[in-house]
């Protein structure tokens, strides 16, 4: 039970107004925030964004640090983006020149700009995934995508597959742990040896894991059919999603931010712009 709650995505299970928002609202507003990130033209705009997500984190009862943590896996891409833009931009006034290395003010601006953009995209998504459980997310996605059913897009099937996959990740992790221990009890060695030896050592782990995954899939399909599952047609929901007043306030807040950011691009003197 404990293992399960740890591994379910990065959902941070606490009570808050933001957790209670309709998942559809959160998905759409996250998209709006991403658009906002692309509209930012100056450091003032990024400061506004930062203030907004900080406030959101406070309201959501989620440690701000946890939100920043999402950036960590991206650090190499971030550094790469920064360096590439810094060294390979040739337009603008030269700030520094040495042999074949040329730094321009334009390059510096661009590299700061792109790295910040990337960081904020990740932070905005984290805001959503930290406050919305994976099941709610796939529920919300299903409804948002359902208009596409007109062009035979399998919205229900996709959402169902997502929920099932999410449901079984912890189970498979537990199973992996168990089989690994069982083979270690028979002297299996997963830790030492060269690459080939290690790949070979995985066989006693992977075969039982696949066997059990297929067995589980079969069992699940059988159990679903036994309970008359026949696809999304005419299916009602256990958790009915409903927009509330809080959803409206959230939308207004994001709209306000968007307006501010658009204005900022227009009003600030040219020197401030990135």
């Amino acid at each position, binding site marked *: 039970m404990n293992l399960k709650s740890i591994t379910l995505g990065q959902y941070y299970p606490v009570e808050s107004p933001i957790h209670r928002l309709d998942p559809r609202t959160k998905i759409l507003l996250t998209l709006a925030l991403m658009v906002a990130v692309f509209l930012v033209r100056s450091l003032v705009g990024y400061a506004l964004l930062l203030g907004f997500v900080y406030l959101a984190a406070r309201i959501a009862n989620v440690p701000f640090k946890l939100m920043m943590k999402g950036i960590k896996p991206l650090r190499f891409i971030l550094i790469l983006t920064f360096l590439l833009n810094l060294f390979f931009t040739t337009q603008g006034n030269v700030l520094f020149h040495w042999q074949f290395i040329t730094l321009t003010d334009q390059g510096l601006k661009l590299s700061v700009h792109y790295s910040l953009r990337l960081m904020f995209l990740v932070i905005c998504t984290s805001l959503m995934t930290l406050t919305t459980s994976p099941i709610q997310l796939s529920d919300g996605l299903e409804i948002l995508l359902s208009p596409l059913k007109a062009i035979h897009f399998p919205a229900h099937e996709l959402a169902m597959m997502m929920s099932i996959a999410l449901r079984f990740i912890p189970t498979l992790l537990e199973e992996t742990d*168990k089989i690994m*221990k*069982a*083979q270690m*009890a*028979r*002297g299996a060695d997963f830790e030492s040896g060269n690459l080939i030896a290690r790949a070979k050592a995985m066989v*006693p782990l992977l075969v039982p894991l696949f066997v059990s995954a297929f067995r589980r899939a079969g069992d699940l399909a059988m159990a679903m059919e036994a309970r008359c599952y026949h696809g999304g047609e005419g299916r009602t929901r256990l958790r009915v999603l409903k927009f509330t007043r809080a959803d409206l306030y959230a939308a207004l807040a994001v709209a306000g931010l968007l307006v501010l950011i658009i204005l900022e691009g227009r009003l600030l003197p040219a020197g401030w712009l990135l």
Partner: protein
Amino acid sequence: MSIELRHLTHVYAEGSAFRSVALEDINLTIRDGDFLALVGHTGCGKSTLVQHLNGLLTPSSGQVLVDGEDLAGEGVNRRALRMKIGLVFQYPEYQLFEETVAKDIAFGPKNLGLKAEEVDARVRAAMAQVHLDWQKYAERSPFELSGGQMRRVAIAGVLAMQPEVLVLDEPTAGLDPHGRDRILGIIEELHRQGTTVVMVSHSMEDVARLATRVAVLSHGKLLAEGTPREIFSRQEMMTEAGLAVPEAARLCASLRAAGIDLPADLYTEDELYDSLLKRWKEAGR
């Protein structure tokens, strides 16, 4: 080979919001030649305890001493020790992976670094121990066998390493009575031949019949430990631990409550039968 648990405590997910104490301050010694039964309600920590016996889990605090040596100590070859203390997991049939039964059983002995002939001899011996006909089954795929047969292949896979201590986590779970008797017969035979056995079980009848000692766990703590006679005469303690005593002990208690003069510590059917017969004969005279 003796195994001593000293103040063993195990905490899962330490340092997170999901922290849970699975074992708390367990002191227990398993001596050479013991048949120790580990009993307790679901989730009381039996599987967790069992995985400490061969170093698959490391204690959060406390020690596991094997022949006086700390399992978590520096320079201890845990992999080698693991093969001397054979552990059969709950539902071991799910760990089979080879193309043939013989190859799967050979996995352990091969990891011991034995020569091909020795491995082959051990596979044959282990299959004989679990009553699987070599001619008939050696070349079959383990995935074509019945659940009970798969279970026996998995147990043979551990026996083929010829462990000094055999630890089994609910070896009879999910088997029919016939399959259960078969597995228990195999374990009984091994114990008679001198293997030390630790067995997790939910069947007090099996425990009464086989064990020389019983340890009762409840909510991660060791509630009591002693011979089956000592343990099964303490009905209240067993009820508190969420367990029943063997049918015979319960019947004996009811008869005593009804005023029939019987010894208080009977727990096997045969004993009860003999005592009743004796009383009946005395009464008849």
